[in-house]
């Protein structure tokens, strides 16, 4: 089995495990829906207000849902010992870590993106902002999974792991939030979104290059 086969095998295994455990898959989406519902209750049902804050609401809710969903990335594998076996296997750790991150994104980031588009109808997001919102989510949510994986690897199996994870990860997510919301807001005002998209793409490439190394190393440290 080559490294590529190992990558696909682990990816398929994770996806299969994820779909067998629908709760883990649906809970972040449910959380996302609930957080979005809080905002009309807090801000009032007026269309103009909701429309103006729609990008912020969608993105803050996505950020929170993503950070909460991270917890499941390595935990069950750590508990039943399969993470150790995965790291002991002869394939490069980075490839295996990449497979786990991709599986996590496919099971949280991707559904979150689709869900966000549906929910932005409820917030009266104007039509011209849909495509930019989709774009920022497609570029942004993989960054959340990648950067998040480092923090999960550092906190997996700790007593207060879940809470600590959110505390560690939110400051690192702030740039994504800023650029994504700025892009959608620009689109709503008919301005160019190129700058923000370049930046998000740059951050995605940076995260893609560095995060798997840091995650693999962090996992090795946690495993001793």
């Amino acid at each position, binding site marked *: 089995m080559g490294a590529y086969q190992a990558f696909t095998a682990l990816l398929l295994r994770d996806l299969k495990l994820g779909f067998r455990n629908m709760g883990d898959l649906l809970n972040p989406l449910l959380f996302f829906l609930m957080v979005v519902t809080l905002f009309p209750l807090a801000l009032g049902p007026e269309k103009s207000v909701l429309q103006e804050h729609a990008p912020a609401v969608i993105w803050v809710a996505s950020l929170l849902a993503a950070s909460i969903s991270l917890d499941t990335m390595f935990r069950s594998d750590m508990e039943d010992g399969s993470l150790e076996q995965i790291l002991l296997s002869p394939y490069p750790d980075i490839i295996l870590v990449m497979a786990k991150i991709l599986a996590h994104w496919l099971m949280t980031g991707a559904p979150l993106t689709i869900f966000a588009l549906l929910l932005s109808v409820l917030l009266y997001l104007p039509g011209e902002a849909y495509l930019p919102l989709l774009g920022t989510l497609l570029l942004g949510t993989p960054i959340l999974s990648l*950067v998040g994986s*480092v*923090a999960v690897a*550092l*906190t997996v199996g*700790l*007593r*207060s*792991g879940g809470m*600590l994870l959110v*505390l*560690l990860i*939110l*400051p*690192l997510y*702030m*740039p994504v939030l*800023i*650029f994504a919301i*700025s892009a959608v*807001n620009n689109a709503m005002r008919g301005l160019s979104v190129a700058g923000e998209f370049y*930046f998000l793409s740059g*951050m995605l490439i*940076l995260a893609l290059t*560095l995060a798997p190394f*840091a995650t693999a*190393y*962090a996992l090795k*440290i*946690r495993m*001793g």
Partner: protein
Amino acid sequence: MLGPTIDKFAAPKNAYSVACTLSPWFAWISILLFAGGVYGGLFYAPPDYDQGEAYRILYVHVPAAWMSMFVYVVMAGAGACGLIWKVKLMDAVARSCAPLGASFTLLALITGSIWGKPMWGTWWVWDARLTSELILLFLYLGYMALQSSIDDRRTAARAGAILALVGVVNIPIIHFSVEWWNTLHQGPTVTKLDEPSIHVTMLIPLLIMSIAYTTFFITMLMVRLRAEILDQERNTTWVRELVLGGTD
């Protein structure tokens, strides 16, 4: 070669005695510099043509803000050395840096807020620098939270080092993104301090104060380091001899 020399110096016992010898020296230097800097800042430097006497808080605020970033880099650098060369001393340095850096950051935020009240008429503005300083404080607190929740000292140090390095990569991105955000969201409602080219009579006390802050940081680092080393080496004979020798 250099390696064995560093190893010898980095041996906890030697590092402990070096820290014991040097810390009073640095303490005295920093006390003298603080006295000079405070005198210079309060009496020697002329009042500002725009802000009058109120600007003098700058001598506390600006060095604190500088130190907040400097200490983070020292912490990440020490963490990286600990990771790469597996020097235990460097782990202890990184661990000692975190609370100091967080204190400098908090000091910069508080003094900035006190300065902002008379200048901007409000305790807080969502200015780019203030916001990135606040995020820096979050990074420090996250580092400390991670350190305190991992029981094994070695694992904690290495995990902390990775987090600090991720933070170092992120700090420029955070800083830049916050500036970008600020220019987009904030109109010209807040008259931000236009920094004039600072006069040399104002600059000299500022430089003295920054050196004072640096030596103060080194002093406190050594004090913390001594405690860290004793804690880390508490099962060794030399620590037992040191402690028992003191009580006998």
